[in-house]
């Protein structure tokens, strides 16, 4: 009995269980990341205030209730690392990728189920190592989520540069290994296990987005493994890959010579930039697919949207230098990186306009998943606008490392992905657990998420325009930033509102898991293959092998089921439009 439970729910090779394991792990990591965000905002909103209860909780980081600067750096570093790699990557890409891809291509499971299980357990190990690094001598890594040397390469640089940084590197290496396995699985599944009749151009855009994101991950992540190995060797074995000559740290001249800190930046951003597309493409794909279920009409421009994703994927591999405009890069190289970066706005804008056009003339049903999907478009449009400034080397010189950047990337890889994650959870929860989430709580949660989130990061753009630098522990020492006290206070209040709003989600999630209304097989009357099987789907997913007859967006037609045709409805019953 126990053995059966362990095989089925713990060491499972079923993609649905693994997907849910990833989602739950990611949500727990999100709580850690959100807690760190609260600490950051308490410091920036109320600098020098003594939080007595926190001094008991964090005696080292906040003795007497005021955060130490060293602890602040560790908190910022870990907030970024956890949110990017252990929340969004796990929940949205690995979690929903695992859960949805086999179901939506009509397969019984992933191409390599055992590898899939291995990937999850390595991912969990990686998350555990990352969290444990808080408790080692010197505390967690403090060199920023980008881990630039020499801060990350010299153990005596800051307290977090000791064991915490080593664990950070090891955890990232495990993450990359796990993500590579998972990506390999998704690509192989899409290539080799599609149901009969399901051509690539009939795949839901969600699957396309996971497919492209996985290819990006496979090609862009290994170079950071190389970088991580070299960084470890610099830290522990006396090499000078990244450490320059004449470096004095803590009053001592280091023996290293000739290394190049910029080399690390190139290797990091060669991963780092595609990584943001690994996160944002699935977010866009999911939002694109959720829209038609609530507009009850076909999406606009499916094929061109697919090619936009492909184009964005290709371009994302060759633009990494736009993170390094101020690194002393040749102006000609900067010109190149500006041009290709701004080129990305073309397919991205087409994609955004297609989403807007999909709404045109429709009667919108504003259910919770739809609210979140719509807010993805809003956040994507607003956040993307800031990218126009940052992608341009001339403007970026001014804005680099200010809160303008913080506001921009939080809207894009924070907001777009967070809102899409919630859209996905509300939309597929009935399929995953056979129960429906509470609609009232869901809508309330939406407003408490979208509202504060938008306010926080919209305002941060203006902090950046005033010259407020990111990663600074406090702004109290600068005359020119004295006027930003009020803005920082407002941002902090909004942040606390945002975090408390998430309690609504947690309550709804847990309560619905056990007490939600029973869900039908196809509660949203949607068209893709996962809705043709039971909720939750049985082991093996489908009773019989589905045969696909049409594209994924056959809405606004007359059938016995209603105004839609699932992908398996034969052409003789309902004419095929694509």
């Amino acid at each position, binding site marked *: 009995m126990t053995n059966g439970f362990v095989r089925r729910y713990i060491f499972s090779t079923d993609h649905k269980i693994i997907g849910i394991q990833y989602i739950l792990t990611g949500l727990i990591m999100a709580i850690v990341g959100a807690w760190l965000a609260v600490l950051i905002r308490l410091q920036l909103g109320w600098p020098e205030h003594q939080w007595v209860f926190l001094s008991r909780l964090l005696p080292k980081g906040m003795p007497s209730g005021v955060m130490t600067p060293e602890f602040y750096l560790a908190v910022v570093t870990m907030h970024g690392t956890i949110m990017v790699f252990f929340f969004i990557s796990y929940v949205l890409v690995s979690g929903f990728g695992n859960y949805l891809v086999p179901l939506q291509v009509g397969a019984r499971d992933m*191409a*390599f189920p055992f590898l899939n299980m291995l990937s999850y357990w390595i991912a969990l190990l990686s998350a555990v190592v990352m969290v444990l690094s808080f408790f080692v001598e010197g505390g967690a890594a403090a060199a920023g989520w980008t881990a630039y040397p020499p801060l990350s390469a010299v153990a005596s640089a800051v307290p977090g540069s000791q064991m915490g940084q080593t664990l950070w590197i090891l955890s990232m290496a495990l993450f990359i290994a796990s993500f*590579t396995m998972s990506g*390999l699985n998704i*690509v*192989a599944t899409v*290539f*080799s*296990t599609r149901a009969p009749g399901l051509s690539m151009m009939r795949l839901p855009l969600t699957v396309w987005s996971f497919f492209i994101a996985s290819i990006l991950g*496979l*090609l*862009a*992540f*290994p*170079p*950071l*493994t*190389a*970088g991580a*190995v*070299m960084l470890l*060797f610099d830290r522990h*074995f*006396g*090499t*000078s*890959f990244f450490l320059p*000559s004449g470096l004095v740290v803590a009053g001592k001249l280091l023996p290293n*010579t*000739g*290394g*190049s800190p910029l*080399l690390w930046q*190139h*290797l990091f951003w*060669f991963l780092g930039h595609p990584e943001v597309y690994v996160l944002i493409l699935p977010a866009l794909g999911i939002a694109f697919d959720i829209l038609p279920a609530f507009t009850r009409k076909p999406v606009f421009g499916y094929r061109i949207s697919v090619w936009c994703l492909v184009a964005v994927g290709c371009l994302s591999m060759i633009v990494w230098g736009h993170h390094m405009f101020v690194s002393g890069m040749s102006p000609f190289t900067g010109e190149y990186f500006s041009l290709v970066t701004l080129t990305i706005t073309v397919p991205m804008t087409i994609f955004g306009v297609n989403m807007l056009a999909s709404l045109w003339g429709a009667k919108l049903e504003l259910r919770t998943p739809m609210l979140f999907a719509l807010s993805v478009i809003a956040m994507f449009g607003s956040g993307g606008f800031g990218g126009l400034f940052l992608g341009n080397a001339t403007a970026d010189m001014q804005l680099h490392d200010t809160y303008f950047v913080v506001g921009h990337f939080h809207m894009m890889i924070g907001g777009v992905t967070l809102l899409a994650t919630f859209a996905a959870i509300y939309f597929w929860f009935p399929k995953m657990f056979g129960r429906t989430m509470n609609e009232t709580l869901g809508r309330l949660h939406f407003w408490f998420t979208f509202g504060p989130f938008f306010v926080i990061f919209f305002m941060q753009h203006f902090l950046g325009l005033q010259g407020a630098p990111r990663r600074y522990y406090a702004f109290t020492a600068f005359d020119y930033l004295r006027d930003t006290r009020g803005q920082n206070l407002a941002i902090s209040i909004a942040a606390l509102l945002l975090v408390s709003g998430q309690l609504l989600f947690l309550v709804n999630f847990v309560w619905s898991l056990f007490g939600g209304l029973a869900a039908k097989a196809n509660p949203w009357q949607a068209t893709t293959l996962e809705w043709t099987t039971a909720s939750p789907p049985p082991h093996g997913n489908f009773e019989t092998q589905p045969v696909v007859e049409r594209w994924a967006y056959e809405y606004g037609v007359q059938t016995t089921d209603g105004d839609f045709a699932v992908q398996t409805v034969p052409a003789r019953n309902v004419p095929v439009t694509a």
Partner: protein
Amino acid sequence: MNMVMDSRSLAASQPGAVSLREDQLRLGLWMFLATVTMLFAAFVSAYIVRRSGTDWRQVQLPAMLWVNTLILAVSSVALEAASRSGFRLRWRQAELAMGAALAGGLGFLAGQFVAWREMMAAGIYLPTSPHASFFFVITGAHALHVVAALAVLTWGAVATRSGATDVPAWAARMELCRTFWHYLGAVWLVLFALVSLY
């Protein structure tokens, strides 16, 4: 009686589940090799960038590396021979050749170890010069991949011992072994050329 077959006709004779599995494994391997390519591409480009540093000093590489290269090449040839013998259903020859291929792989690893020891005996360690740092890190990363490939070769060797009973499955395994092994041989040639010529 003509017993010569090739993997294509063998795969065609076995429709359905086995050939799907073959396709998936082949696809999986090629994608894995794509990631490995990116890993070594990163090392190579880092090498090229770092080489422009003023402190770059070329260290003397041991002659043993030429021997290792030869061993690896012979091992690749032996693997090809094993595959050809199997397709002609000469299993005894195939087994011997697989043994030779495996021994070659182990010999290469041992030879690399000897080369590292020789360098250290000559006073060349990781931090001695950026060239030495890169040499140890890159050859180490390559050796780790060789260890993984040896596991796959062992899997192919096991199939060769029982190959007479399930030829299509054997052929599929051998194709994966050959792809992986020859790929790592080619990577070695590139890396060896890099560290000794540039």
